[in-house]
């Protein structure tokens, strides 16, 4: 998977869960749970969508690596290498 492709998947998953989000103003290292006002059910939907689209299994241990656009993209890239 290429970087841009992984980032698009993360952005699409966020937009699916938080359709009102304006991702153009979201910095790559901004914590999206705070910036987009996501609750814990939103976050759960987000990781379920990522798993469905990429086949990557995401465990509770992985949650600390899924907090920003940059680290989520990096996480998908590392897991699909």
């Amino acid at each position, binding site marked *: 998977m290429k970087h841009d492709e992984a980032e698009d998947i993360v952005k699409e998953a966020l937009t699916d869960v*938080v*359709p*009102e989000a304006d991702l153009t103003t979201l910095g790559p290292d901004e914590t999206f*749970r705070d910036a987009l*006002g*996501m*609750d*814990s*059910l*939103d*976050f*759960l939907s987000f990781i379920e969508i990522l798993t469905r689209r990429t086949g990557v299994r995401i*465990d*509770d*241990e992985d*949650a*600390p690596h899924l907090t920003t656009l940059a680290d989520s993209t990096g996480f998908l890239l590392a897991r699909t290498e």
Partner: protein
Amino acid sequence: MTWETIRKDTTAQVAPNLADYARERAEFTWSRARKRLDGLPCGRGLNMAYEAVDRHAGTTRGGKVALRCLARDGTVTTVTYTELACRTARFANVLRSLGVGRGDTVFTLLGRCPELYTVVLGTLKNTSVLCPLFSAFGPDPVEQRLRLGDALVLVTTAALYRRKVAERRPELPGLAHVLIVGPGAEELPGTLSFDALMAAASGHFAIPPTSPEDMALLHFTSGTTGTPKGAIHVHEAVVAHHATAAYALDLHPEDVYWCTADPGWVTGMSYGVIAPLVHGVTAVVDEGDYDALRWYRILDEQRVSVWYTAPTALRMLMRGAPPRQSNDGRAVHDLPALRFVASVGEPLNPEAVVWGQESLGLPVHDNWWQTETGCIMIANFAACEIRPGSMGRPLPGVEATVLERGEDGRARITDNGVRAVHEPDVVGELALRPGWPSMFRGYLHDEKRYEAAFAGGWYLTGDLARRDEDGWYWFVGRADDVIKSAGHLIGPFEVESALMEHPAVAEAGVIGRPDPMAGNIVKAFVSLRPGVEPTASLERELLAFGRRRLGPAVAPREIAFDQNLPKTRSGKVMRRLLRARELGLPTGDLSTLEGSV
């Protein structure tokens, strides 16, 4: 499937406060429970904040840690009872300096931070009224509650104020003071810095005389129709917070206690703030969001002994984080300090009760209560067996029953009053005999709805339940259209009203769709105005519209287009029928439907 009853080891590490259920029920009286509290010195009444803070602060317990606050980054700060007494006195003086007095309402829109405790308890010291809001509410629910609750003061953060209040401020002329916790007040017109006001205030404050019947807390809850209802609670409720936390949470003074509920809801207030402090325990306060590993770490590192959480959170834990294998081959998280786990908010499925037993080494004790009751009413107890899936039995001092239902699904009310169901396992409306100290004293400015909540000498809960032959209660569902999602009550009318403000929407009907994680999620059926096409992009736009207005806690998570919403002859959308269709259930008597068979 039937689940095996969980029997208790008779040698618990700590002797349970309620050892003999029948005896405790027979001997308990609320007036004796009242005597376990101090009351204001010189007989000046009963004040929640005095019982929670000051009565410890002046004793050898003053140096004990009251709050152990965990910031998002994991930093731990502690607040002792004496420090809390000083901070809450300062805030009471801040209120006084602003001209805020007895009966004036102070709202909080804050996360789980130390300042929340200062504001709640300082407000109560000042004999003002505290109304908490949930920080995941959107601007609509926030504005509506501030207006309905006659907010004079709001304490919040700069980020929450900008996102949820600033634009609506002109619509709230009664909101005289907005206090900003943390940085940012100087950039926000019409706000004051909480920190600056606190720094200038004295740490000494004499609590004025407080009648046990003085209003203390205002909690908004949702009904089937109309606006949210503000349930009024009085200072005397602290008697019930104290007694029930002893019985249903088995709190002992040496406990480290963690209530995960958000302070924006009644659980986070009654059992997150008041009850643990009245018991003089150390309360863990976590500012962070749900995160399974973080939660296990908190339970472990903070040596939490009593944990009060919610079914949705437990089900989230169940889906991941496989526990370590213990020596005997069983998978158990190693949490030696933890001795009691309880849950509330929605019915706890038997799988979750048993999961606790298998992976925490402790079964989960479900209990039941609601905003109006102010305290736990029905519970599973530390010393008693658990029937997985049951909410347990009424607490000492609580009389519960199941009432026969009428056509509309609620208790049948006739000229002769109501009729209790005496046969076991018959479904009816759960009802409670009024008289416990934390019973709500009214809905703010809505006497009619308050009166409608009682019949034949009972408070009607709106929940359906059955009682088995041994007296255990089992939750069945709601008797009305209110939606229980992730432990929160959501009024369908509030959601429908918001959606109908979108120009594409002609009508909306909102129901709870069963969900394995949240219990129910909010689903909206929407009919569109003539000429509007039901496209995927419109669906997304409506979801976004709902979230922007209502926030994630209330907004629909699913939208379905339906140009033929079922309606009564009078034109009301039939949510009951939408729900029956969604679940594939028989739709019942359709004779009152418009254009029906």
